[in-house]
């Protein structure tokens, strides 16, 4: 049995998962070390979000284990509250509860984990987190009053409310303009440096990947094609990775059949 490093805070082993009878992920294994930004890459429809949902135990896997902070969970087991409170999740569209204000949204994890904490103290913590994501002005606003980028930052404030040790982000910069996307990437780096939080980020935004990625797992057709550092990915001569990191389309194979017409001049 492999000895698990103390530095490893998440380990996914031989994960097999899918929907209904269909298998989407096969034998996925990788780990996340303390303080690193681990990215899950791949083309659209390769199973990145399914993998994230399985790691978060939002859907049940077919087989395999996931170890959080040294505690192993089987395929059919759910995560316990303690583990959930040590992690934060930033969903693709923010997933803010629309009937609560930004502050109330960010307060939800605090209420759950520290029920005896006075309201004023919770508000102070939330204000601090909102300031970290540069969104203090939106303290009393509702999600419907925010732009796409602001919603993501508000959701990030909620995700880091409990200063999690591990943060999961599902396509954080997708759908944002380049400037906002860049500022969100820098914010994630800042959070890693100031809070020491490790991150698992699902993305296919090359600009973001080049800025924030430490190590990555590249998924192809449900399998891990490559597990390595950003530099290894950039240097790889594997055609799929070459195309992905250089944004080049693979040459189209001409398997087409053409009509034959009889022309008469």
């Amino acid at each position, binding site marked *: 049995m492999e000895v698990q490093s103390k530095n490893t805070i998440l380990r996914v082993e031989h994960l097999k998962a899918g929907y209904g009878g269909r298998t989407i992920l096969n034998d996925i294994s990788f780990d996340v070390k303390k303080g690193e930004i681990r990215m899950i890459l791949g083309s659209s429809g390769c199973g990145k979000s399914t993998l994230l949902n399985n790691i978060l135990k939002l859907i049940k896997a077919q087989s395999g284990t996931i170890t959080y902070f040294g505690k192993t969970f089987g395929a059919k087991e759910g995560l316990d509250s303690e583990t959930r409170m040590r992690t934060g999740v930033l969903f693709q569209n923010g997933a803010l509860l629309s009937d609560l204000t930004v502050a*109330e949204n960010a307060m939800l994890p605090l209420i759950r984990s520290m029920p005896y904490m006075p309201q004023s103290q919770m508000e102070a913590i939330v204000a601090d987190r909102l300031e970290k994501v540069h969104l203090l002005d939106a303290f009393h606003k509702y999600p419907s009053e925010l732009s796409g980028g602001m919603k993501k930052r508000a959701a990030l404030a909620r995700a880091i409310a409990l200063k999690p040790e591990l943060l999961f982000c599902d396509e954080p910069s997708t759908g944002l303009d380049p400037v906002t996307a860049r500022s969100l990437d820098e914010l994630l780096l800042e959070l890693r440096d100031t809070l020491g939080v490790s991150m698992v980020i699902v993305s296919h935004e090359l600009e973001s990947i080049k800025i924030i990625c430490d190590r990555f797992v590249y998924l192809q057709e449900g399998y891990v094609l490559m597990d390595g550092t950003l530099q290894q990915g950039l240097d790889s001569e594997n055609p799929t990775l070459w195309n992905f990191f250089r944004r080049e389309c693979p040459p189209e194979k001409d398997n087409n059949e053409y009509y034959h017409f009889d022309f008469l001049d």
Partner: protein
Amino acid sequence: MTAIAETIRLPSRLTAANSRNLLHKCKGCLRKGDLCLDGTMLAQMDYSGDAFFSLLADLSEKTGHKLTLAHFCDDIKTHLKNLKRQKVPAREKTKRHFLEILGEKGIRAAKGTAEVFVLLNMSIYWSLLGPFDKGKIKFRGTAKQIFALGSEAMGICFLMVALICFTMALQSSFMLKAVGGGSYLASGLGFLIFAEIGPLLTTIILAGRSGSSIAAEIANMSVCEEVKAIKTMAIPPVQYLVVPRFIAMSICTPILSFCASICGCFAGFLIAFFFFDITFTNYFNSIREGIEPILFLKSSIKALVFGWLVTLISCNKGLNATGGAEAVGLATTSSVVTSISAIIVADTCFGFIFY
């Protein structure tokens, strides 16, 4: 003997507008024999041109009749030489046996019923345990739901029950007048309203109004990953989403049903007063004689159970919604249909138990 090729002259512009009739004509000719398309005038063709020529080429191969393109300009000739053969993928036909479909529907119904019972169990657990749970999310949950699901449905419930009771009293008044039984109107009507019409009609209206709103709201939250977000924060979705609605409906439905029944009695009084000259005091004394106090309890229990059915079925449909906007619509429709069916089935069961 070989058939002489028919020649059709193509227009200067082959467009979607003129290619339809032309294609029909060309196909007709090609089915009978060889075809020659004269492209002397053809200078331009729009997006429909490729499909026009490929369909004719396909038909030519199928029938074995020769298709000749004569006097085409070089541009179009080059374009047609590079025309790819497009294969439209065949639709997968999965013919399923009637029993298989029936079995699947049965399993789905059984699963849904089991889920509603699990939800009921959890809702009762969290409703009783909720006040002692310090980590409970308190953001105006139950009070807001009482207002949204109960108070705002008051008007429509009272009006509908009153109108139906009015019509019922009117219809029965003709018959009672004929047999001289006008004095039985109040007692009969009162019993019927409290035992049946009040709880049944109120909850059916609530299923359409409040149940659909519950299902749509939760389904939208499921689709927008908000339910997932709640789970990842270690908050049980039942505690946050179902319990406030469950408590609100548990409080509102019996009260609404009772008040709606009173409204129904008042509507009946109008008929009693105008058709049988029964005074207000006599009418209500007669109702009092026709109703035993236990009937109020039975009526409230019925309303409570019907209210639970509406809430739990709607929440369950909402929580199970997956996909996009379509899933929200499906969950809403399904919640109303299932709730009303469940209410009627439960009402039949109560009929055997209570009366």
